[in-house]
């Protein structure tokens, strides 16, 4: 039980939080670990707050509940900081990763006194620079892999290249952009 890494994603419908959770499960699976990636379905519409979850473990995972005391939280949309209790149950020795263009000093006071580590990344800037469009989940995936130490960066990039070449088999032109987004995000998260 104790070796399970639990991650909770907060996003809005249409932003790809569910896809990011499934991608994270995918990439962790490639390292031979046991994984879970699942969304919590609420109102099925664009913009509504949604939650997705990951468990990553060296042992088979049997529990099928949502995650209440995560080690890591990823906030895909900064505007959720005011409307959703994103740090609920978040472990003090864990960390929260927030997608924002603001400096960390402006974000920390909005976290209701959370005492653990706070990481930020400007996924919009990364995505616009590498993909020309706003897809926050690719940069956030790289950022959480780094923050949570899911796997070594080189291995991660190799696995993702393999994964993208399958996923985007019909439009290979986007593979390079996505790979660039991952690499830039690994540098930008702080």
């Amino acid at each position, binding site marked *: 039980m104790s070796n399970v890494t639990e991650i909770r994603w907060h996003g809005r419908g249409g932003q790809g939080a569910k896809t990011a959770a499934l991608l994270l499960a995918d990439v962790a699976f490639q390292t031979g670990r046991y994984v879970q990636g699942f969304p919590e379905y609420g109102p099925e519409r664009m913009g509504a707050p949604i939650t997705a979850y990951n468990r990553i473990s060296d042992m088979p995972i049997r529990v099928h*509940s949502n995650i209440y005391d995560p080690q890591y939280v990823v906030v895909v949309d900064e505007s959720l900081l005011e409307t959703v209790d994103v740090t609920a149950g978040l472990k003090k020795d864990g960390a929260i990763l927030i997608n924002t263009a603001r400096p960390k000093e402006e974000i920390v006071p909005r976290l209701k006194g959370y005492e653990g580590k706070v990481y930020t990344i400007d996924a919009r800037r990364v995505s616009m620079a590498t993909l020309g469009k706003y897809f926050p989940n690719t940069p956030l995936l790289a950022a959480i892999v780094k923050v949570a130490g899911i796997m070594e960066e080189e291995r991660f990039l190799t696995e993702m290249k393999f994964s993208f070449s399958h996923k985007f088999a019909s439009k290979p032109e986007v593979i390079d952009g996505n790979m660039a987004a991952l690499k830039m995000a690994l540098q930008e998260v702080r």
Partner: protein
Amino acid sequence: MGKRERLSGNEAVAIALRQINPDVFPAFPITPSTEIPQYFASYVANGQVDTEFIPVESEHSSMSAAIGAEAAGARALTATSSCGLAFMWEELYIAASNRLPLALALVNRALSGPININCDHSDSMGARDAGWIQMYAENNQEAYDNMVQAYRIAEHKDVRLPIMICQDGFITSHAVENIELLDDADVKNFVGEYEPETYLLNPECPAAVGPYSITDYYFEAKRNQAEGMRHVPQVVLDVAKEFAAVSGREYGLFEAYRMDDADRAVVIIGSAAGTTKDAIDALREKGEKVGMIKIRLYRPFPADEIAGALGKVKAVAIMDRAEGYTNHGGSLGADVMAALFRARSQALAVNYIYGLGGRDVRVTDMEHVYAELQKIIDNDDAGETYRFMGIRE
């Protein structure tokens, strides 16, 4: 042998169906089962199966078309959830009484109302007396494995009954988890060809399917149908044994988890069984003698075997993920308590309604149930036997 993968429960079942390559798949979409025909339609489009895929206009029609195809001599199936199953009601009984061994991939979802898309077992529990074999899964692996075994059970000459392969909506259907798949060739060999003795498309021997039966015949016809059901448990065990030889994964009528010396037990169906296992392991670390029976085969109900497995417990909590509106609990509760009564059990039994409409089940919820069972033992009194787990009140 086998291939390690990570898949959602829906994709796992769809892959099992691709490997089985059934003859006819009529389908109408409904959340959360929609992905099964959706994945399957892509296999059809890619030429990976030669199944006749029929997009119909309702679940009434999907089940009707599956029945017609099966009677014609084809291996047929469909998939649905919730209100879709309710709309098949009439046909469920037709499929069973005509002894047509078709399959239904059911992704459990609450029935309206209030309207809700999330998991509980009210859909399949309502259909429990329709004459279908019902099997339930804890996770994607079990949903896949049950689907692979389904036709071997349903089509067995001693059985010939339709089979419902159930898994929990969203909780397993939409969760990506590790899974081990069998090789395509192994599934093909294991499932084999469907060779019905009598079928409508046989010009050598025309047949009448589903003739009217007057009062002089109806009762005997239903008794004859019940005989097929009586053969199911042995066939399930025989098929499971063969499946274990191919897959290395063993199945029974139910799973008894840490029951050997348990004085408290939970009887449960579906994904919450995995959560209960974590609760059991945590309590066992503290020296508490707790265990669980997870139902795999619910219809027919292996009453004697379950009563036997509960033979030594002092208190048992039976968990129903569907309300029965009996004023004293749900259908699993009634089945298990009847089994205990017939076995002259002295166990104190309570029935919990839980998890309706997708209400989350946590390890701490199950730990609380075991704590309540300890109180029951200490008081030597079951107290209220009709309980609700985690209800706000």
